[in-house]
């Protein structure tokens, strides 16, 4: 059943029901603000708590305690007065805080006094030769299927890449009886030394012991190859093998499924389309919004919380959601702020949740060869544009992603640059000897997700709108 929003105006509209959005919406509603939470998925949870209310994986140990934290957040949300709409895709947000949202094939329009964007993260593109072949997926994709449908890899399965999520996924697959033939760890050896100065913070963070025991659990059952410096998928219309180089030696192994992962990056499309200023983050190698200490962006009234504000993980996302909501309460209903956790306490909590992040970011900084492809490797999956095509465009004068679009259509397909944007920026930066900040990013505009023409046609219009189009 699809339900349109009950009102046209809200104090706070939260977009995304992951950790940050769940926390923000319940905090805001508890303080008495009219609050609407819009989420694209079937149920709340975002990616990290995916299918938290419906997962068929009933043995709580299999998904781990960190997952089930999400159930408490959902419970708090349900206990609050927040209005929640699932399968609601926001396709437009503008500087006037007007939101267009597609629900069940029809659009609704709401206006907010404050918008809290909690659109989270997506996996960093992993543009290796053959990454578009059927049978090559992200690790997150496999985890989504595992959480929401208790599906586990069955055929010959290779997991490649690096980062905490990769080990968590591997452990979860094994606990559910799935198959993993080999793990190819692409962590650059030099990163261990670079990360060392930040190790103390990490050792005292909650990630440390959990991470270590998970790696031990996986390594006891699966062959792990570390120091992988090259990676390629091949097959004729379907993945057949994975080849890699480790320690200078090339090996090719047969495979039905290759799961790729090299960290996550902010999902910037909606924020950028709303005009929020972003800067290139040299440590996390991605675009992050420019925010103040309460998560407020460069657009008045729009705050960003969670991994969309810069990758911080689920615990930090929850606290950032509370901070953004508290800031909204302070602005819109100052008296109600008194019963919320004080800002200073939230900031302390955030610092604790973010402890060890620099270590992780440094250790798991993906290698250039896995971020910046060459030759015939596809950069833009939608328009099927290769690295060579991009470099040819640079050679005839493309200075940035938007001129590149004009030459080659990169980013002009349905994914709107989500799967190629970072690659394009870094590839052009390398080719031109510039920084990613100088190269810039695609200019994004609504609709940030596809809507049907009929739905767009049903947008309320004025006489002036008609006159701007019909002119003899």
């Amino acid at each position, binding site marked *: 059943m699809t339900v349109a929003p009950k009102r046209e105006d809200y104090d706070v509209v939260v977009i995304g029901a992951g950790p940050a959005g769940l926390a923000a919406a319940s905090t805001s509603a508890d303080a008495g603000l009219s609050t609407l939470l819009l989420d694209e998925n*079937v149920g709340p949870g975002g990616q990290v708590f995916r299918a938290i209310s419906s997962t*068929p994986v009933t043995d709580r140990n299999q998904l781990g305690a960190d997952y089930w934290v999400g159930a408490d957040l959902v419970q708090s949300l349900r206990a609050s007065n927040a209005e929640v709409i699932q399968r609601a895709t926001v396709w437009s947000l503008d500087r006037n805080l007007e939101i267009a949202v597609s629900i069940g094939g029809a659009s609704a329009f709401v206006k907010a006094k404050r918008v809290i964007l909690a659109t989270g993260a997506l996996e960093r593109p992993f543009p290796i030769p053959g990454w*578009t072949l059927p049978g090559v997926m992200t690790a997150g994709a496999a985890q989504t*299927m595992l959480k929401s*449908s208790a599906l586990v890899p069955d055929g010959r399965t290779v997991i490649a890449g690096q980062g905490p999520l990769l080990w968590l996924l591997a452990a979860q697959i094994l606990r559910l009886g*799935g198959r993993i033939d080999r793990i190819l760890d692409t962590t650059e050896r030099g990163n261990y030394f670079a990360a060392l100065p930040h190790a103390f913070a990490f050792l005292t963070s909650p990630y440390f012991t959990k991470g270590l025991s998970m790696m031990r659990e996986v390594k006891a059952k699966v062959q792990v190859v570390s120091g992988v410096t090259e990676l390629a998928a091949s097959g004729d219309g379907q993945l057949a093998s994975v080849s890699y180089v480790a320690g200078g030696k090339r090996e090719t192994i047969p495979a039905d499924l290759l799961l790729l992962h090299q960290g996550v990056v902010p999902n910037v499309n909606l924020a950028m389309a709303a005009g929020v200023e972003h800067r290139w983050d040299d440590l996390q190698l991605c675009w992050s919004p420019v925010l103040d200490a309460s998560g407020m962006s460069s657009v008045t009234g729009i705050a960003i919380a969670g991994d969309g504000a810069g990758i911080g993980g689920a615990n930090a996302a929850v606290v950032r959601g509370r901070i953004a909501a508290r800031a909204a309460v302070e602005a819109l209903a100052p008296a109600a702020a008194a019963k919320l956790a004080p800002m200073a306490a939230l900031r302390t909590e955030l610092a604790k949740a973010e402890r060890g992040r620099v270590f992780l970011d440094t250790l798991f900084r993906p290698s250039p060869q896995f971020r910046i492809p060459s030759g015939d490797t596809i950069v833009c999956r939608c328009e099927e544009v290769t690295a060579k095509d991009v470099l040819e465009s640079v050679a005839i004068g493309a200075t940035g992603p938007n001129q590149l679009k004009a030459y080659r259509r990169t980013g002009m397909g349905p994914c709107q640059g989500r*799967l190629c944007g970072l690659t394009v920026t870094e590839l052009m930066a390398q080719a031109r000897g510039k920084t990613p900040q100088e190269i810039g990013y695609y200019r994004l505009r609504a609709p940030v997700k*596809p809507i049907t023409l009929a739905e767009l046609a049903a947008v309320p219009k004025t006489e002036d709108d008609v006159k701007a189009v019909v002119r003899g």
Partner: protein
Amino acid sequence: MFRRSEQDKRPQVQIFVDGVAVAARQGDTVSAALLASGVDARRSTAVSGAPRLPYCMMGVCFDCLVTIDGVGNRQGCLVPVAEGMQVEIQKGKREIGK
């Protein structure tokens, strides 16, 4: 490529893929059901006709595009299955009116 864990006790839902009955589970997305079914669910792209399967399963890559109940280019990873749902694997560009 994928199989179901035995602990999954969700009720069965029957969908049709290019007219052939396929067993799914309540709460599956169309893409998950297709990947679990073992049928050849590869679409071919509108640009070159290259074969593809879902890549991200979270609504951002658009490689799961599929025709659902007569409507083309739906994101199969965001749409839950329903009893009797008609799914068609897309080959090339979508047809207008579909």
